[in-house]
């Protein structure tokens, strides 16, 4: 399994310290293309007032039975639909940030991403990041969820004949 996993050191991004300044956030990523550092400096780095973010890695505990997963996909063993994917982790919900949203690695956000409303805000997908719309994530919030289109597309979930009223 480990042999199949390629470790990629990806781009410095977002946050980064109020000291600001261009030229790239830290010098440890020799492989980072210069033009991308420039992008970070001019577009994101300067406006981000928080301290740098440091989060270590932890163990990934797989929950997916590969044989069953593929068998289901091929029509055996009940439902063919399993939102889990090999190596992926999951966040279920709706996320909104005024500034930047970063999804780091093979994470499946089952819900949605809204916002990124600041003038230079960005959404960043890193290395296999996935957003899966869950229409229910946009419902049930009543007063705290505003905007959106006036109408709602629907599909029939169940249909049955019942006695006449």
């Amino acid at each position, binding site marked *: 399994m480990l042999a*199949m*996993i*390629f470790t*990629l*050191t*990806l781009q*410095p*991004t*977002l*946050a980064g*310290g109020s000291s600001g300044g261009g030229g790239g956030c830290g010098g*440890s990523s020799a492989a980072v*293309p210069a033009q991308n550092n420039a992008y970070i400096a001019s577009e994101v780095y300067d406006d*981000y007032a928080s301290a740098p*973010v440091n989060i270590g890695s932890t*163990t*990934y505990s*797989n929950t997916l039975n590969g*044989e069953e997963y593929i068998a289901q996909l*091929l029509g*055996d063993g009940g439902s*063919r*639909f399993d939102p889990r994917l*090999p190596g*992926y982790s999951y*966040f*279920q*919900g709706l*996320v909104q*940030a*005024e500034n930047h949203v970063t999804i*780091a690695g*093979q*994470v499946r*956000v089952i819900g949605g*991403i809204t*916002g*990124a*409303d600041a003038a230079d805000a960005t959404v*960043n*997908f*890193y*290395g*296999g*990041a996935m957003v*899966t719309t*869950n229409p*229910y994530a*946009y*419902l*049930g919030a009543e007063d*705290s*969820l*505003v905007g959106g*289109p*006036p*109408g*709602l*597309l629907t599909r029939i*979930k169940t249909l049955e004949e019942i006695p006449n009223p």
Partner: protein
Amino acid sequence: MKRSRGIALITILAICAVLLFILGVGLKLGGNGVLFVSQVHKRNVALSAAEAGVYEAMAALANNKSYSGLRTGTLAESKATYRARVTNSLSSGGSLAVVSTGEFGGVKRTLRAELEPDALGFDGVSVDGKVYVFDQGYVNAIASPENPVARPGNMHTQYIGAEAAYQGRDFGEDGTQPLVHVTGGLTSNGSLGNTYTRTARTWASGVNKAGYRLDPVQMQSGSFTTVTSLLGGTLSGNTEIGTDPDTSVTKIPNKLIVPKGVTLVVNGRAEFLGGIAGDGEVVVNGDAIIRTDANFDPNTKEGVKVYASKSVFITHPEAELEDSKVKAQLDPIGDYFAQMPMEATVELAIDMPTSAPRGGAFFTWFNSAVSSPDSEFDLWYNGDGTDIHPGLSQETKDWLLNSDPIKNDIANWASSTSGL
């Protein structure tokens, strides 16, 4: 002689009686048949009218998502009528149902339909800023966590500027062409850009539409219990933590569950190191860092709504943030399945050859069989031009063919995880 005539007369009368009986029975059955056919016709038309009422309700909701009430109408040709009552409590987490009665010729039939929101009507990503894809980014949709049927997923940004709204970057500098894989529509108000490979069902620039937004003021209304630390577990009520939005840092080491109806407010940076779950709401007056795990809960209907006044990082457990630099790992098997076409989940099972292994060995079998197909394989793969044997779409074929370099890795992965 007289006796013979009498017998003949009686015989004739008996025959006439039998004929009359047969004629009567025939007329009776014929009349019943006509009545039966007429009744069946009325029932069918009434049912069609009831169905029309359901679709009328769906059309009303397409114009007004809060619609509740009665819709009535008359079908143009048959003049059958319908009365469809919509009961809509979606905005409060409830259900959406239509009870529609069709009537024709004095016959009534009633249908009850439960409707659900269609992912097609939402943008999974709906933002104002630019979207960057570093190597690979995927957007798709499901019907619901409970019934995760694949649906088209959309992505939209309102960004207009000198640069394109979507930007692809090869951050590993290994020659990877950035890929934006969207199963529905990819749209932007500004330019779509060309620094990435795009696979989307539709795409368009110059699209101006407003998305949903969370209202943090509303989310923070009400009373809150102030705490000084949170270790994880399930919140039982509205909770507030952190004193200074600029300097406070709240680290929550274990998974935090925020139930429906409960709001957590964090002043300052929030680090959810064990992840967040539930159907409640979270407001972070600062940055939010959310570490995820491999657990998916099909019973979580909506998921947690997270608002951050600054930025949000959602990380894979094996990913790292080092001075805000992202270090992540790419599992090529996961990436292969992430690119699976939406149609594949339906197509693969139709006419699957009996010789195909139902498990991790499937892809090894496929890459061998595709080079020397038998008739059974050919029917599954190419179909015969009928609806019964449609064959695979070109997207699904391409996806299967792309498995060749990692077919053995897939088999090994499936085998190694079969005990879970």
